[in-house]
């Protein structure tokens, strides 16, 4: 929006308006026509008007005048600098003061319509849940392993919480896991707590899955191309880290490449070498499973593609098809094949 008075060069006639009235004024300040809000005035109706005005729409009076004077240039902010504009009387300022909180409350309620905010809540909740899950799950495994010395804590790891949660004593848990009963059994109170803890882990696992499924659904809807390219969970995390889809779409691909590498970027500013990729890009197998010396090249390439993908999503471009995405992934393989050996040192 411009702050300078907008004057139609052909005629110099401007259409000025605020919530009370609209006027058609020429460059010398001569008023040609004026329409005043004549309907029933209430603070609720005023809040509706202000809501429209804030979105840059014309008031009904201004619309009427723009039909009468099609050559007049509408200037939503012109009334602010017009010295002849009538000031508010007491009743009008009372009404305005009553309408402002209504408008603010409406804005607060409308914040839930913002997908960026909803995605932020969902992704942050899932991240916290995952942090809780890793801690709890590891404790459950160690705790059970202390009693059942013969359980294979790696191969049977996934079965342990469910086995303990489903058993009514340590002995039956041992039978469930196919090992000998413990030499020392936990006390009754101890077993109860251990059993509930395992229940908690099983619950957390189910909740975490549900959370991530919800994120997947949302990311596929909100940013389909980016979700197809780097996976829905990664796409959602990128959007949240950038602070919204719009901000991610406006980001240079170099910034997208290092999203999630804040500490490394801070170190880079103090002279360390720059990070090759952020945490989210690194979670893609194309980068994390590649040899060290091509990771930077692939990350740069994929970040470039990802920034194009999110721009397609945000600015209404065509959604990428699975074939297009597969083509990009093939190209990463080509980059990898081009550099089969580490670069020579000391040059």
């Amino acid at each position, binding site marked *: 929006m411009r702050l300078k008075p907008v004057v139609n060069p052909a005629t110099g006639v401007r259409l000025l308006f*605020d919530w009370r009235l609209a006027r058609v004024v020429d460059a010398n300040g001569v008023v040609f026509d004026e329409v005043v809000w004549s309907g029933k005035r209430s603070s609720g109706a005023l809040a509706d008007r202000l809501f429209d005005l*804030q979105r840059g729409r014309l008031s009904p009076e201004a619309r009427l005048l723009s039909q009468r004077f099609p050559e007049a240039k509408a200037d*939503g*902010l012109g009334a602010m600098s017009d010295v002849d504009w009538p*000031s508010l009387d007491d009743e009008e300022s009372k009404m*305005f003061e009553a309408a402002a909180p209504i*408008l*603010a409350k409406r804005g607060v309620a409308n914040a839930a319509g913002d997908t960026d905010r909803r995605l932020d809540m969902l992704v942050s909740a899932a991240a916290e849940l995952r942090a809780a899950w890793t801690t709890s799950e590891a404790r459950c495994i160690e705790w059970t392993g202390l009693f059942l010395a013969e359980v294979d804590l790696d191969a049977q790891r996934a079965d342990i919480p469910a086995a303990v949660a489903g058993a009514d004593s340590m002995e039956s848990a041992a039978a469930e896991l196919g090992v000998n009963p413990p030499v020392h059994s936990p006390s009754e109170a101890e077993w109860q707590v251990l059993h509930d803890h395992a229940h908690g882990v099983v619950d957390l696992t189910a909740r975490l899955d549900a959370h991530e499924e919800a994120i997947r659904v949302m990311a596929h809807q909100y940013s389909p191309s980016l979700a197809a390219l780097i996976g829905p969970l990664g796409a959602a995390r990128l959007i949240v880290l950038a602070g919204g889809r719009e901000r991610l779409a406006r980001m240079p691909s170099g910034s997208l490449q290092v999203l999630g590498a804040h500490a490394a970027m801070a170190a880079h500013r103090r002279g360390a070498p720059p990070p090759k990729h952020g945490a989210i890009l690194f979670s893609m197998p194309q980068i994390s499973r590649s040899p060290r010396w091509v990771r930077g090249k692939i990350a740069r390439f994929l970040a470039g593609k990802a920034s194009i993908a999110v721009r397609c999503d945000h600015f209404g471009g065509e959604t990428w098809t699975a074939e297009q995405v597969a083509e990009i992934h093939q190209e990463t393989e080509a980059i990898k094949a081009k550099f089969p050996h580490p670069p020579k040192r000391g040059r």
Partner: protein
Amino acid sequence: MGAERRKRDGRIEWRRWDPTRSKVAASLMRCKGEAGELLPEVGSTCLYLGASTGSTVSHIHDHVCGAGNHHGGKVVAVDISPRMMRDLVRLAESREGLIPVLGDARLPMVSLHICLRKRVGCTRT
């Protein structure tokens, strides 16, 4: 947030204005000249940008409007965040003359200019 420190002295109530939490309070403390000159005139119209939940705003409001707005002032408090606006709207319900506005102060705000056609008392971020 802890409870606000209040003290009653007859009809007058004192509220603690913490200079470590409010830039306005801090600048009043560090002011070398007449500290009162930094504050807007009693009964004027103020625009406060970046009002947040309104702790500093409430003190400006006390100064400009007084209890029940007996000075007839106005404080227009602008913030961009709906989360902060939630608390600010509740504050405005109990303080006459405090006008909460949810919006981006970098964009010209159409709704603002109407109430600010009078001379603006102060602008802060």
